C-alpha cells in the first residue's frame, strides 16, 4: 500500500496541481535516476591523444573508471548498452570490454546504433529495461574511435532503394545534407561562421575556467609517434579540439569543404570535428539507489525520436524537441539548458531560429564544432555536459537533442538533482 506521504501527495496534487515543470521535478520512487556519469576527453581523430586507442581500450578504460569511481558493487550491474556507430563487430567488442573492465560474467552487454543518437538511445534502452522491470541496474555508454574506424558513408544498397525518391536520399553524404539545409532555408556563410565562432568561444571560456574538468575522467593509454614510430604511455586528460581565439572573421577565411554542392557554406571550421571519445552513465530506479546508498545525480525523464526527409536530416532537433516537450506538457521556457549537437552550423542556426530558443540557453559550453563529434559517444557525452553545466548554474532541467543521419532527430529530458 501507499505510504501516508504518498496519499498526502496525491491529495495535494488534486488540490493544487503542479505545473508541468513541477511534475518532472518531483521525486518518485520509480523514477529512473543517474547515480554516476563521466566522459573521456575528446581528442582529434588521427592526431590527438586517443588516436592509437581502439574502441575496445577506450571502453575498458572508461568502464574501469565507472567501476572504481561509482562505488557500486559490479555484481549488481546487469546490462551494459554501448552506443556505437562505426566499429565492425561491435557486439563482440562491447561484451568483451565489459568483462575486461572487471565486471563479472553476469553483466550482459549489447549495442545500440541509431547513428549520432546512439549514446542517447543506449540511455533510453537501459532506462526502458529498468522501467519494464527487466533489470534493476544498468550502464549506458557511448563510444567511438573515428581514428581506428573511419566513416565510410552509406553502403551499396539495392536498386529498389536507389530508385526510390526518398530512400535514395540516404546515399547522400552528410556534408551534402548540410548544404541542402543551408540552401533550402537560406542560411548564409556568415551565419554559419558566427554560430561556429560562438561555439569555439564558449568552449574556450569553459575550458579555461576548468568547467570541463567536472565532466572528464582521464584515459591511460599509449600513443605512437608518427615520425619515429616510438610508442609511449600517456594519460589523456583534456579536450584538444578547442581552437582559442576563433572569430567569425578567422573562420571566414576557411575554404568551402563541399564546392560541388551549392551554396558551399559548410567548411572544416564551421562543422563538427572528427573525434575520438566516450561517455558513460549508471542508471537505476530511485528506490534502488536509495536502498544502495548511491548518490542521485540526475533523473532521466524520457526521450523520443522523430523522422523527416533524409536530405535535410540536420533539422531533426527542430522536430524532436517540440515532440519531447509536448509529451511532458512543457514549454521551451521551462527548460534551462538545450544541449543540441552541432553536427553542422547550418542545422544549428536553423534549429535555434526555428524553435525561437534563447541563445544563452543553447550549448553554454560550446558543442561539437569546438570539441568534436565522436558519433556513437555524442548522445551520452551531451548528457554529461548538460548535467555538469546545470550543476554549475544551479539550474534543473536540460533537453538534449541531435540530428541523426538518414533523416531523424532524437531528444531527451534530464533533471539535475545536485
Amino acid at each position, binding site marked *: *500500500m*501507499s505510504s*501516508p506521504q504518498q*496519499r498526502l501527495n496525491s491529495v495535494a*496534487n*488534486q*488540490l493544487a496541481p503542479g505545473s508541468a515543470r513541477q511534475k518532472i521535478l518531483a521525486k518518485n520512487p520509480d523514477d529512473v535516476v543517474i547515480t554516476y556519469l563521466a566522459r573521456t576527453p575528446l581528442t582529434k581523430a588521427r592526431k590527438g591523444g586517443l588516436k592509437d586507442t581502439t574502441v575496445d581500450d577506450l571502453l575498458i578504460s572508461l568502464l574501469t573508471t565507472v567501476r572504481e569511481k561509482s562505488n557500486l558493487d559490479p555484481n549488481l550491474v546487469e546490462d551494459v548498452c554501448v552506443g556505437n556507430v562505426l566499429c565492425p563487430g561491435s557486439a563482440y567488442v562491447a561484451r568483451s570490454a565489459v568483462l575486461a573492465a572487471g565486471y563479472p560474467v553476469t553483466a550482459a552487454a549489447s549495442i545500440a546504433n541509431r547513428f549520432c543518437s546512439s549514446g542517447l538511445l543506449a540511455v533510453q534502452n537501459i532506462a526502458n529495461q529498468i522501467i519494464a522491470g527487466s533489470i534493476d541496474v544498468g550502464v549506458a555508454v557511448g563510444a567511438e574511435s573515428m581514428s581506428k574506424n573511419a566513416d565510410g558513408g552509406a553502403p551499396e544498397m539495392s536498386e529498389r532503394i536507389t530508385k526510390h525518391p526518398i530512400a535514395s536520399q540516404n546515399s547522400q553524404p552528410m556534408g551534402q545534407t548540410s548544404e541542402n539545409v543551408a540552401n533550402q532555408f537560406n542560411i548564409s556563410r556568415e551565419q554559419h561562421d558566427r554560430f561556429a565562432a560562438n561555439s569555439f568561444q564558449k568552449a574556450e571560456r569553459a575550458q579555461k575556467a576548468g568547467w570541463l574538468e567536472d565532466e572528464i575522467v582521464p584515459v591511460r593509454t599509449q600513443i605512437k609517434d608518427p615520425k619515429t614510430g616510438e610508442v609511449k604511455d600517456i594519460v589523456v586528460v583534456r579536450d584538444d579540439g578547442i581552437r582559442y581565439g576563433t572569430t567569425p572573421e578567422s573562420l571566414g577565411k576557411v575554404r568551402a569543404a563541399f564546392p560541388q554542392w551549392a551554396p558551399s557554406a559548410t567548411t572544416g571550421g564551421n562543422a563538427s570535428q572528427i573525434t575520438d571519445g566516450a561517455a558513460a552513465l549508471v542508471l537505476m530506479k530511485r528506490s534502488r539507489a536509495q536502498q544502495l546508498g548511491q548518490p542521485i545525480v540526475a533523473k532521466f525523464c524520457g526521450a523520443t525520436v522523430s523522422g523527416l526527409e533524409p536530405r535535410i536530416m540536420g533539422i531533426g532537433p527542430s522536430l524532436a524537441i517540440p515532440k519531447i516537450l509536448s509529451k511532458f*506538457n512543457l514549454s521551451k521556457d521551462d527548460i534551462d539548458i538545450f544541449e543540441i549537437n552541432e553536427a553542422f552550423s547550418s542545422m544549428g542556426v536553423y534549429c535555434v531560429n526555428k524553435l525561437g530558443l534563447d541563445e544563452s540557453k543553447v550549448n553554454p559550453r560550446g558543442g561539437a564544432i569546438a570539441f568534436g563529434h565522436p558519433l556513437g559517444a555524442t548522445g551520452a557525452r551531451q548528457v554529461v555536459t548538460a548535467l555538469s553545466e546545470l550543476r554549475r548554474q544551479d539550474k534543473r532541467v536540460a533537453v538534449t537533442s541531435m540530428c541523426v543521419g538518414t533523416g531523424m532527430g532524437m531528444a531527451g529530458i534530464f533533471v539535475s538533482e545536485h
Partner: protein
Amino acid sequence: MLHYRTQGYNGCAVKYSPFFDNRLAVASSSNFGLVGNGRLHILELTANGIQPLKWFTTQDSLYDLAWSEIHENQVLAASGDGSIKLFDCTANDFPISNWKEHAREVFSVSWNPVAKDRFCSSSWDGTVRIWSPHRPQSLLTLPTHSCTYSASFCPHSPDIISCVTSDSYVRVFDLRTPASASNHLVTQIPIHAGPPAPAIPGQPGGPAPPAEALTHDWNKYRPTVLATAGVDRAIRTFDIRAPQQGPLSTMLGHEYAVRKLAWSPHLSNVLLSASYDMTCRVWSDRSDVAGGDMDMMRAGPVVGAELGRMGRHTEFVTGVDWCLFGSEGWCASVGWDENLYVWDVRATMS
C-alpha cells in the same frame, strides 16, 4: 437541514439506501484518510434527527461505499488496504465478505443496478475489477494503467461499465464485446480535449491541459450521457455515441477540484457536485432548454447554469448523494469537517 457528526472520522463518501427511505451510510477515515482507521456508519433519519444504527471500524481508511442492490442490509466499503469489504447491518463488528486483489488503495465501488449480482471496484493500482458477491475471486480485470478514481456501471445496460482516471480520460467498456487485446474497451474520451471545430471566442470548452479526473456519473434518463469532473474544477457532460465531439456542456464555478458528482434521480438536467472549495453546488446542464442532446452537440458545448449553492461545510466536501424517495430535492453531503448534512437543494435555489 439535519446534521450528524462522524466524530473523529473525516467523511469520504455518503450513499442513501435503495431500500429504505430513511437509511444512509457514510464511509469515513481518521486523519483525513492519510493514516489510521476507517469507519462505516449506518445511520437512520428519525423524528429525533439522524441516529446511528450501527458502525463498523476497519484497520485502514475507507474511501467509498455502495449499497447492495439485492440485499437491503448489506453495504460494500472500499478500503485503503486494497480490500473491498461487505458488511451486513444485522451482523456485528466484522465484514461478512472480504475481497483482496487490488494492489493499492481502492477508491470506488459501484453496484450494478441492472444485473444485480455484480459490482465493480476501481483502484490506484490502475485496474477496474468486476466481482460477484458469491465468488471469492474477481470475475474480470479491466486495466486502465492509470490511477482510477471512479468506476460505475451504466444504469441503463447491465454490460456497460465506465471509469475516469488520473490520465484525464473517460473509458467505456462493453462486456458483450469479445475478450481481446482491447479488454472490452469500446470508447475512450479525452476529457480535456475541446470540440473539433474552432472554439467560439469567450466560450469555454476549448482544449485544456490534461488534469486528473476524480468523479463521474451516468445520467439516469439519457442512457448515453455521463458527467465528469476533477482537478481542473470543470464539470463536463459527454455523449458516448460521439466521443470525438467534445463535451456537450461545461459547468464552471468551483474554485478547487470537484470530488463528487451525482445526477438527480428525478430531473434529467440537474446535477449535484461536491468540491474541495467546501461547497456543494446544484447545476442544470441546460439540456431542458437546448432541445435535446443532438442539438447541443451541433452548437458546441453549452455552458450550464449554477442553480444553487450550499456552503455549510467548513472543510473539503467529499461526498454527495440524492435521496431516491419522497419529494425530489433531498440530498446528503459529507466532508472532512466530520459533518454529515441532510438538506433540500430547493432551499439553496433562488
